């Protein structure tokens, strides 16, 4: 069940919830998939779904799947102290009102505030023909706010969000203050910001949300289905040096309470931490059971899906780069000399075959003579995944995994997290004027 409460125009005057229940049946025939689902779990409905899914298996079976060696019981990466399902929505209204009051108190230019609290608990049971039975109780809580500021006839918007797999304990005064602070920070710069002259330049990506670089430029291309089908630009790069030594990039389902974490993925494989790049060498793709069987490796716990309406496919979880040893973000800005510094993003996209990726920058600064100068905003950045990896010149020691509400789309949505220490990349193309 997913519940939401929205504050708009000073009142929490809209809200609601969604009840979603059902069962999916997947039949595998080699690497081929048959899938069907039912919104009822009575036996006739389940059998009908099973018959529809089994249409993929025309004839006898095509090889089996190995039973997963689960090992000892895994920890729960997102235990709820207090379950949302027992809470009364009325207790959350004052918090949303407080959020708006804090935001308005911080800046007299605030014109409008929209705040949203969403929370859900998914209760999932998985069983397969290897007689593996697993279950997972997945909470998700998100708070987001969009603020419209007006000053001297000019309008700017700023958003902030926090999202974790947590129970009611998510919604604290501290969280509300943190979101209010972020939603009102940097507004002077936004009103002053201009479009830079565009072109190729060095880009310093600030710690945290810049992890969108890893997600778009590398993470998708490391998903094993794209490689199994020969589509990914990294399809022939396994075991090869793809960036400078010292760089480690991983996808992690075990970060406590983060959006991307999974006790079990949607194929019943335990959550785990997967190094994709170790010391600059491509060491693993992200696998579901199908691609793991194809490559003859163990599944990595990346078989994820949006809901019972979709079959699992390789998806990222929390994707980040480990700390480097090239100093601080200030050191990287000095090293760049000129270019731009970016730290706030909206969305990104990648073309898997070509490796061309983009991400949209909501705010940042020009770098001139090794220091931050003019604020910039609303620019797209474009690059090529393998080239951008090779062009990482420096990695700071300030890793941060962003706590925002990141959602990945790949035909079906999945909650993810991303993070990175500050990095310096030469030669990305930045949108702007002439």
């Amino acid at each position: 069940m997913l519940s939401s409460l929205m504050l708009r125009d000073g009142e929490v005057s809209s809200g609601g919830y969604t009840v979603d229940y059902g069962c999916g049946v997947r039949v595998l025939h080699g690497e081929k998939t048959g899938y069907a689902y039912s919104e009822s779990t009575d036996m006739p409905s389940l059998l009908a779904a099973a018959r529809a899914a089994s249409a993929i298996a025309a004839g006898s079976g095509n090889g089996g799947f190995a039973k997963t060696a689960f090992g000892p019981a895994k920890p729960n990466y997102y235990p709820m102290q207090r379950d949302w399902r027992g809470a009364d929505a009325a207790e959350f209204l004052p918090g949303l009102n407080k959020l708006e009051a804090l935001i308005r108190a911080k800046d007299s230019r605030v014109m409008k505030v929209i705040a949203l609290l969403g929370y859900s608990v998914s209760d999932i049971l998985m069983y397969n023909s290897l007689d593996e039975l697993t279950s997972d109780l997945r909470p998700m809580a998100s708070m987001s706010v969009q603020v419209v500021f007006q000053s001297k006839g000019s309008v700017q918007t700023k958003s902030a969000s926090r999202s974790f797999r947590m129970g009611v304990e998510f919604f604290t005064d501290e969280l509300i203050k943190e979101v209010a602070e972020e939603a009102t920070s940097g507004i002077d710069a936004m009103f002053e910001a201009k479009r830079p002259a565009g072109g190729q330049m060095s880009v310093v990506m600030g710690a945290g949300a810049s992890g969108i670089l890893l997600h778009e430029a590398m993470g998708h291309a490391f998903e094993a289905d794209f490689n199994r089908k020969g589509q990914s630009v990294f399809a022939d790069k396994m075991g090869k040096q793809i960036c400078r030594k010292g760089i480690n990039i991983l996808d992690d389902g075990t970060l406590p309470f983060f959006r991307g974490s999974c006790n079990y993925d949607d194929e019943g494989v335990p959550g785990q931490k997967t190094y994709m790049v170790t010391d600059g060498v491509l060491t693993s793709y992200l696998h579901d059971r199908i691609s793991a069987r194809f490559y003859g490796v163990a599944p990595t716990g990346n078989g994820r899906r949006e809901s019972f309406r979709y079959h699992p496919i390789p998806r990222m979880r929390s994707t980040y780069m480990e700390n480097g040893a090239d100093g601080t973000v200030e050191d990287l800005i000095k090293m760049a000399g000129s270019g731009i510094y970016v730290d706030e993003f909206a969305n990104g996209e990648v073309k898997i075959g070509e490796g061309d990726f983009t991400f949209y920058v909501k705010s940042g600064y020009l770098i001139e003579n090794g220091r931050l100068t003019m604020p910039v905003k609303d620019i797209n950045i474009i690059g090529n995944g393998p080239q951008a990896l090779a062009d990482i010149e420096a990695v700071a020691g300030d890793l941060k995994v962003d706590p925002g509400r990141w959602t990945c789309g790949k035909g079906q949505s999945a909650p993810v997290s991303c993070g990175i220490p500050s990095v310096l990349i030469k030669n990305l193309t930045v949108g702007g004027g002439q």
Partner: protein
Amino acid sequence: MIENYELELARLAMELAAKEGALKCRVSLTKSVSDIIGTLNGEIDKVTHCLDRGLALTLFVDGRFGTFSTNQLDEKSLSDFVSKAVKMTRILAEDTLRDLPDPARCCKSANDGDELGLYDPAYAEVSAEERRKLALDAAAFGKVPDTKDYKLISEEGEYSDSEFDAVTLDSNGLFCRHKETSFEYGVEVTVQATDGSKYSGFWWESSPSRSGLKLEQVGTTAICRAAAQIGTQPFASGRYKMVVDSNVASKLVSPVLSALGGYSLQQGNSFMTDTLGQRVFGEGVTLIDDCHIKGQSGSRLFDSEGVATVPGPVIENGVVKEYFINTYISKKMSMKPTVEDCSRAHLMPWPKPGLKQDDILNMCGEGILVTGFNGGNCNSATGDFSYGIEGFRFEGGKIVSPVSGMLITGNFRELWKNLIAAGDDARVCSAKLIPTIAFNNVDFNG
């Protein structure tokens, strides 16, 4: 498709809500079935069968408002659902501006759901075997020879068909129904050039009718689009004329339509604020809501409130003629209500009818033809945008070389002032009919 007993469940939800104290409510019941056959390199790779049914409930209780949905429609579950929904609505702050639409504005002509001819009875005749055959026959892998310049290394195709049925009722007596079928085939290919570089291409066709789906050229079109990019590279940054292929041109219309939406306007988060009745675009920009065309995707007789849609101009000769104002926003902003959004946007030809892409390239002489977008976004408050693009440089009206890894940057209000031409070649399989369009003075970075 929606059966009588399901309609009775929808009515039961309204009765239960009334008993619980919801003086007004709206119920929308939807049901859909779809089958998807995926192919990989000429073989069946994926078979998916989907059956969905859901009920959405909009409640107005003691001056308060809530929206709820469930897919558990047995009477016991429905009763619990409605009871809890009313209880939750009562905890929300009062908002007396929330209301059902005036019945006089509501649609009264959507009774059997197929008034617009979007439901093809032939859907029921498509067998599982035929779906597999259609998907396999449409695949180009192994049928199209590689060339000296490239080989096809991956082809993923997807044939799908579906039927959809939706009924909307409200406590003012509204009854509206919309049924449609859809038949689609899409394919994504990856080709590898002789230097090992990879290029992807995509193409699709869709139709509400089985006989309207043309599968023959989909795979080869995708391959041609991928192969045409071989040797692509960024072009020198500069300010050029931009021609945008009709396949992707709606990307430059959607933000404008969104900015004309009531919620954005009411929140002050729209670059079209205070433009109603004003000439803000070039005189060549005429966009109509062509929402009642029979048999065409996107057509509909009513919006989600049940308000009757009305074909007509949204922008006419550059002048903004309509905001999309639903019942709530009309009261919030003291404006006349219209419909909640544009159903089937149609950008009209300019400066004359009948122009195709080649004509527009000739008209422009030289510039960049954009055939795909890669990411990017628009600031909804200011209209500033920046998008990644791919396409072709053209000179003398002829394509000379592929370009990629470039960005366009600008502002939507400025962009649409600089419209040079709009063609007559919109893809009718799309719900937005946006033809090839051309603009002056667009900033490209590469």
